[in-house]
């Protein structure tokens, strides 16, 4: 199915430097629409850094220099778009659940609010829709006014996903979204990700190869700032073309 999928994000020869350090060395890849693309590799390989270039979160860090192009639906996100506008279209879920110290309701409608929606009924509708999409409405509907910090880690992460959905992005970036969660919560997030791909394009960084095989359609293997291998997940895991990929997925590699 991935063959005929339309390309959502197209990355051409992307280099990233932290000061003198060359963190991404010429990444070229096409991320298809309505699929889940997993980024794997040992820690420090650049997969999270790469993920952050897709919604320009690296802009927030000092001394970062980027060369090459990233195109979202054909538009260069570093030339033709500003970061604020881009981040509304490319949402992000972080490694640690990061709800704001506000109520559940205020967390979900934060994005719509800062975009100028003031109508209470409309906000409530967005809140319900987003929480339903994140499959957590039933758990939270009776406690929307309570602090989001009182939720369990898994609930917090799904709330953060709902918060991202409320902005109605096209793409959702997930940066090791389950690494801080227990197995049951992890299962729920994975299931959710697979449901969401019908409507969204998802890019997920994971250090967990089983997770990549469970959820993703395509997998990219990063090593020391290089994209070593990228292709159909099943293919990559069962029949890796590069020896380094094979060594990594069979666990013979740092």
């Amino acid at each position, binding site marked *: *199915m991935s063959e005929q999928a339309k390309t959502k994000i197209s990355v051409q020869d992307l280099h990233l430097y932290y000061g003198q350090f060359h963190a991404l060395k010429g990444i070229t890849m096409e991320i298809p629409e309505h699929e889940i693309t997993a980024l794997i590799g040992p820690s420090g390989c650049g997969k999270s850094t790469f993920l952050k270039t897709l919604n320009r979160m690296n802009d927030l860090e000092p001394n970062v220099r980027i060369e090459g192009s990233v195109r979202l639906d054909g538009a260069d996100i570093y030339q033709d778009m500003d970061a604020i506008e881009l981040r509304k279209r490319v949402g992000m879920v972080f490694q640690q659940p990061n709800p704001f110290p506000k109520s559940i309701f205020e967390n979900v409608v934060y994005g719509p609010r800062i975009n100028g929606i003031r109508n209470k009924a409309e906000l409530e509708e967005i809140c319900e829709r987003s929480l339903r999409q994140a499959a957590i409405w039933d758990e939270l509907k009776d406690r929307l006014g309570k602090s989001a910090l009182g939720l369990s880690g898994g609930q917090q992460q799904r709330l953060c996903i709902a918060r991202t959905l409320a902005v109605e992005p096209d793409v959702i970036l997930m940066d090791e979204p389950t690494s801080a969660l227990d197995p049951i919560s992890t299962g729920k997030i*994975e299931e959710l990700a697979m449901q969401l791909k019908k409507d969204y394009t998802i890019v997920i960084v994971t250090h967990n190869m089983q997770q990549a095989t469970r959820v993703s359609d395509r997998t990219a293997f990063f090593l020391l700032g290089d994209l070593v291998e990228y292709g159909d997940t099943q293919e990559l895991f069962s029949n890796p073309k590069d020896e380094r990929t094979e060594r990594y997925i069979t666990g013979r590699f740092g």
Partner: protein
Amino acid sequence: MESTILNFGTQADAAGHRPAALKREDSMSNVHASKKTKGYYFRKEYLGRGIATGCGLFIVVLTLAIGVFLLVRGTGTFTRFHHSILEFLFSSDWSPVDTATGSGGGVGAAVFIAGSLLTCGLALLMITPFSIGAAIFMTEIAPKSGEKIFRPAVEIFVGIPSVVYGWIGLTVLVPWIKNVFHPKMGGYSVLAASIVLAVMIFPTITTVAADAIRSTPDAFRKAGYGLGSTRWQVIYRIVLPASRSGIMTGIILGLARAFGEALAVAMVIGKTRAFPKNLLSPTNNLTAEIAADMGNTASGGEANMALWTMALLLFLISMLFIFLIHLISGKGILQVEN
């Protein structure tokens, strides 16, 4: 497609549970497509950032203004009335002419400077051992009750306004000194001023020293105990030397507070324009003299100007203290105090 390798839940399964949702209308995406205007960024970012930056700059300007105004005003003694800096610092002939234009009097502030140095020095001498002792008590000896009882108590010390210290000094300490020592001039004395200052700077030195002691790595203590030291040996030979710079910083902060204190000292020092003969005789200091006479002298006159020079001296001394603290601790006093 199915994830075949490990045979966990399949996507086919997951697809079955898809919510009947709920993607936005396509027309909404036009909202995204519109590029944000300059007006948007002005309202949402530049305006706020500009105001915040302005407030930061305001503090710089304010500080510079205080320095420059004091400098301009305070150097009048030397530029307009042609006194020498040496006369101001070392002469004890204080007889400035108190008219708007008259000149030719003496502006020797040595008595006031000596009064400040003497009272502050004595206060420091009295209280430093106790402060360090109290700091050790609340961190090393009884850390639990130190945190729960002693620290709040020290905060009460800080909270009592300085005029109240002065008032207690005036109504309790001065009569007490008078009754016990029977000095010729009553109880107003260097001793009274020093005791009041000592009590006032006790919390400053204690809290800063306690923080420094607390931040000594535990590994040091364990190493000491491991070698068979007693607690006192660990404190004396390991903890105190390790936290020396923090303790010094606390002492200088205390000194700075004592130097700048005005009304509490003014109430008990006796305001006598003469070097003290002993600890029980009255004298005067910089702050008390400024507080007493600034409003009574003819503005811009020689006497008035000499008082401004004393204010400038206070300003310069407080800058010197900041410099010393940076030199000793390698960090700013704000980090130390918090």
